């Protein structure tokens, strides 16, 4: 056990799985970085944010493949390789670039197993960074996990901390279905204690980061941390919250969410993705359908507006959910007065 950053935890998961299984390969733009450069230094970048640094040096060019800027073909190649014996981990860099290769994910990899009558296995992992907070503007800041969650055949992972990232990535690599693994770009330097050895965290099992009696907060990715910050503050004001990190949006741990709502009777959902048809909407529908009688107040969603992500810091901050907005939403559900129907 030692302190590791989110970046290091992901790097370590890749390294351990590559040591364990020679069929695991990685590919992506500049995952080594430096091929064809005039200095001859390869492994110069290790990905744009240094997440895959050192893997080329350890595993060589057959297993760490730099690609041209050509997402449709290398993401598709990863899917094809996965269906024929390799276990590729393809890095899409910014998840926004999925616009360039969605067909290979949505119509190809996701559907092989079903279309082929259960005869295919596609152990593919696509890693990408997502999220706002970097002033990266509209084409580099989206939180697109609902887009993938919408597609049957894909599993979707949104790790909320270094510990979670390592265990969930190892699980993703060992999984025989296509997995979309989405790393929040603002979290790469976050640190916590992470075991040095290999471990897995199963998909579809939510993590309760705290338990309380009054309000259930469901949050995804970086929002889990913000939800806990808000919950700390609320605790001092006498309001106790349960915070659920579902870890994966597909599969979704419906039971844990419904159990917690049954206990608290109040639900706040924190979701960084665009609000229409997002996870907050999905979970609201679930709870409205399955736990209507448990609710003591309307469900509240802490979500961005239906706009692209703006560039300027002031607007980006306004756009994003934060601890203060979560706190206000929790107070709103606590203060809800039930009005009797006439």
């Amino acid at each position: 056990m030692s302190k590791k950053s989110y970046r290091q935890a992901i790097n370590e998961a890749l390294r351990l799985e590559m040591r364990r299984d020679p069929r695991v390969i990685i590919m992506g733009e500049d995952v080594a970085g430096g091929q064809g450069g005039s200095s001859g230094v390869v492994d110069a970048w290790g990905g744009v944010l240094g997440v895959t640094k050192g893997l080329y040096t350890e595993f060589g060019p057959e297993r760490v493949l730099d690609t041209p800027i050509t997402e449709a073909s290398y993401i598709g190649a990863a899917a094809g390789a996965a269906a024929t014996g390799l276990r590729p981990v393809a890095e899409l860099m910014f998840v926004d670039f999925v616009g360039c290769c969605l067909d290979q994910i949505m119509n190809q990899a996701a559907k092989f197993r079903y279309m082929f009558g259960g005869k295919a296995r596609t152990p593919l992992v696509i890693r990408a960074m997502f999220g706002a907070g970097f002033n990266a503007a509209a084409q580099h800041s989206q939180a697109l996990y609902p887009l993938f969650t919408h597609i049957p055949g894909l599993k979707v992972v949104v790790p909320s901390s270094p510990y979670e990232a390592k265990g969930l990535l190892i699980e993703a690599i060992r999984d025989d279905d296509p997995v979309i693994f989405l790393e929040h770009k603002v979290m790469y330097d976050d640190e916590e204690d992470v075991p040095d050895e290999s471990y897995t965290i199963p998909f579809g099992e939510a993590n309760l980061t705290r338990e309380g009696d009054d309000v259930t907060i469901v949050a995804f990715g970086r929002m889990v941390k913000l939800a806990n910050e808000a919950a700390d503050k609320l605790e001092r004001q006498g309001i106790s919250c349960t915070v659920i990190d579902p870890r994966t949006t597909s599969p979704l741990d419906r039971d844990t969410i419904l159990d917690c709502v049954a206990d608290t009777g109040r639900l706040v959902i924190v979701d960084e993705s665009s609000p229409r048809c997002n996870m907050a909407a999905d979970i609201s529908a679930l709870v409205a359908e399955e736990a209507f009688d448990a609710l003591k107040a309307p469900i509240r969603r802490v979500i961005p507006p239906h706009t692209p992500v703006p560039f300027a810091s002031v607007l980006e901050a306004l756009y994003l959910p934060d601890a203060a907005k979560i706190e206000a939403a929790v107070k709103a559900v606590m203060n809800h007065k039930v009005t009797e129907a006439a």
Partner: protein
Amino acid sequence: MQIARETLLRSYRAMRTIRDFEERLHVEFATGEIPGFVHLYCGEEASGVGVCANLTDNDTISSTHRGHGHCIAKGVEVSGMMAEIYGKSTGVCRGKGGSMHIADLSRGMLGANGIVGGGPPLMCGAALSHKLLKDDGVAVAFYGDGASNEGSTLESLNLATVWKLPVVFVVEDNGYGEATGSSFAVAGTQKARAEGFGMPYMECDGSDFFAVYQTAGEAIAHARAGKGPVMLHVHLARWYGHFEGDAMTYRASGEVAEAKRDHDCLELFRKKVTEAGLLEHSELDAIDEAVRDEIESSVIAAKAAPLPEPADLLADVYVRY
């Protein structure tokens, strides 16, 4: 080659403006005051300016993540660009786009672009507008050697040929896509690619304004005459990292120094025009000074400009909703 004095002065000023704009951003970025990602066009000025000197506001261009130079070359106003990069309400995009999304449709500038390969298909569409609306305009897609490998780019070469569109595909080849060299990433040659799609191929030295101006002039004239698309391959060197903050360990030490020493488009331009007696040193010095002042005041104004208002967050998602 005959070039109007006016064109020479305007082009030198545009190149100097780009150089100073970018060098200043390099300094300002290091202070931490500029948000987001910034990709500098230093060293590549003669390409954007040499091409755009053959265009008017009626023609359309698309740019890339490395877009400041194309914007200035196409006449986008400098103080509005600077304010945009600082995320201010006085920016050309009201602080909502930033460095990678500067656009000004009134100048025929359809945007820098955060998506590699985003521009070429858009320029097929702009060319279609020019063709069907019979406005005599052409569309120019600027894109890098890295972007030349995107499916969207290669598909556009085909579409433009099939539809016989007035597009010029300008491959700005600086030898790198991020940290990866084009000798690794680009199969075959740009020439063979153009010929494979049946379009004329031209190339030139991107540090020589006159070479770019003349070659681009021929390419643009070809497209404007309704003869279909052309590929123009411009050879360049990038003076800074891929983005600000890149240590460039993948490049040999000396590579950039050599480019600066032997291929500085501003120095080469000055030498040529003064030796040929086309312009005086004093005229060029005066431009240098005016540009220095313009950049300085644009930075001061950008820093002092108001931030966007909260209501701006919700504005302009749609024309009507």
